[in-house]
């Protein structure tokens, strides 16, 4: 926090002009923006600390005793109880079941959203058909419709057909999103040249093969970003799985909610649970981080 000295903000503009000649080409290449100061790094470090701390806290408490969560001067480093806590988590809830359920559900939802969004996005972006504009306006309008509010009839329907407690009750309602169609259409409009489609037609490709051989390869970058975001959303979904599933067949979110209920809470156990639940996605984000960041930023400019 020493970086918040009152002198640093003024130092920035004052020191910038004399240094101008040399950094200019570099500045052009790396985007505009003024030169960073100690204040910049100080504030960024503060944001970073704020982002990381809650994640660190769960590991800290999860690897120690329950009382650590309430220490007036908590330890700085994790302890050695993580694995014993983890085995208690596995005893208490069906965590393996939850983990595989979450993987299957989020994976199936992702595949289906990406496939159907690419299909519809391709049709809206590149094919001519009667009613195209009206139908696309409908898609745009449904972007703002909170379909989540249909949970009561959805539950009634699922109960009627005996789907409650089964994984398909979580998968089927999330198989398509209007946002996905919008996203793929925006991307495909400029990513697939019309000439390429015509050339493929001349070569005798039917439309399905045009889709497969022309559209799909071009759609890959946007489809990957859509896939990542759909997966994160599906993995973290809670309201509907809480209603549609039960403790015998939970997703990860439902399982850690289960550990968290009860009057006397064992926080080392609970935090081990949250750590186990968040770890897969965090690891994925660290590995794919560069592409995900690029995806968000490209999407922001196009949308």
């Amino acid at each position, binding site marked *: 926090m020493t970086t918040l000295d009152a002198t640093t903000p003024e130092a920035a503009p004052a020191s910038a002009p004399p240094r101008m000649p040399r950094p200019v080409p570099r500045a052009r290449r790396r985007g505009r923006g003024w030169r960073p100061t100690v204040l910049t790094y100080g504030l960024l470090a503060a944001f*970073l600390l704020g982002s990381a701390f809650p994640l660190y806290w769960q590991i800290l408490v999860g690897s120690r005793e329950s009382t650590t969560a309430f220490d007036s001067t908590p330890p700085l480093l994790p302890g050695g109880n993580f694995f014993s806590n983890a085995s208690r988590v596995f005893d208490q809830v069906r965590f393996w079941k939850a983990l595989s359920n979450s993987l299957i559900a989020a994976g199936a939802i992702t595949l289906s959203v990406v496939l159907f969004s690419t299909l519809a996005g*391709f049709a809206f972006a590149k094919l001519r058909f009667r009613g195209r504009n009206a139908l696309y306006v409908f898609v745009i309008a449904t972007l703002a419709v909170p379909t989540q*509010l249909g949970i009561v009839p959805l539950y009634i329907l699922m109960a009627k057909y005996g789907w409650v407690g089964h994984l398909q009750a979580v998968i089927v309602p999330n198989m398509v999103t209007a946002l996905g169609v919008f996203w793929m259409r925006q991307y495909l409009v400029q990513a697939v040249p019309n000439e390429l489609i015509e050339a493929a037609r001349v070569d005798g490709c039917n439309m399905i093969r045009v889709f497969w051989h022309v559209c799909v390869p071009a759609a890959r970058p946007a489809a990957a970003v859509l896939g990542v975001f759909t997966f994160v959303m599906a993995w973290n979904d809670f309201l509907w799985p809480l209603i549609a599933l039960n403790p015998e067949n939970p997703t990860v979110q439902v399982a850690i909610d289960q550990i968290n209920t009860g009057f006397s809470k064992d926080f080392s156990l609970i935090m081990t649970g949250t750590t186990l639940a968040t770890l897969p996605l965090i690891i994925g984000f660290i590995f794919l981080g560069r592409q995900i960041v690029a995806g968000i930023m490209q999407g922001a400019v196009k949308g």
Partner: protein
Amino acid sequence: MAATTMTTPARQRLTVKQRLSRLDVKLSPYLFIAPFFIIFALVGLFPLLYTAWVSLHRWSFGSDKPEAYVGLQNYQRLWHDELFWNSLKNTVSIFLISSTTQIVLAMLLAVLLNEQIRFRTGFRIALLLPYATSLVAVGIIFSNLFGDQFGLINNVLGWFGLNGIAWHTDRFPSHLAISTMVNWRWTGYNALIFLAAMQTIPKDLYEAARIDGANTWERFRYITVPMLRPVIIFVVITSTIGGLQIFTEPRMFDPIPGTGNGGASHQFQTITLLLWQEGFRNFHLGYASAIAWALFLIIVVFAIVNFFVVRRISSAEAEEQ
């Protein structure tokens, strides 16, 4: 002669092929969009409309038929239900606190990331990690950090000789804590969106302003902010739709999450939390549907307000130019 007899069957085959091909061109688009529209109609649109019908009935959890048609009784009850108005107040309060601070923080963060910093990708990835964290986990962790008795935040306040704050018991502090949770998850994400938009602003504008003697703040205020308006509006609208449906954060913040009370005196019960409680804890599906439909209308009202604000801002922009 031989040539013509050869071509006739060939031409016929070609026309069949052509006909098929024309059919293919005509029908394929509909086949491509069909999965989206069929599934959306079944699991998105139909339940939403059916909610209106369910809301006109007394309908208990566990039965697949309504018990009785009650007309608008559920809505009358809603109008006089203090818990509903309470939840509406809480939802709007949490939404306003979180979205305003979030936009300011995300903007600040984007400005920082836009400088020529080292480890830029590393910073961006690290600031995106909260987005990948599950809401249930976030809710549990923050509820613990904001503990009224021995939570870490109150402990830290104690180091400085300050009194602890009743983060869970008091209404406003609880809204603040829940907003912190929301912002923790979304600030980095929105900062990246702002950053992307900032990088499309022409550099000449800044150089011209610099030559005209504009300082850092003035360049930010008169160039960056106006150029970012469309993106700001986009972020506001998306956070409105999501923010008004907030459920997991307040539910997990409750020390006894299973009840759906949103605190002992409902001090942070949101509309969706009330919906869940009425429908799936008290088993009044008809009444829960009335709440859902009311929330839908509220979101529509907010969207229309947003729309007019957007129009006003963009017309003001046009006048400026």
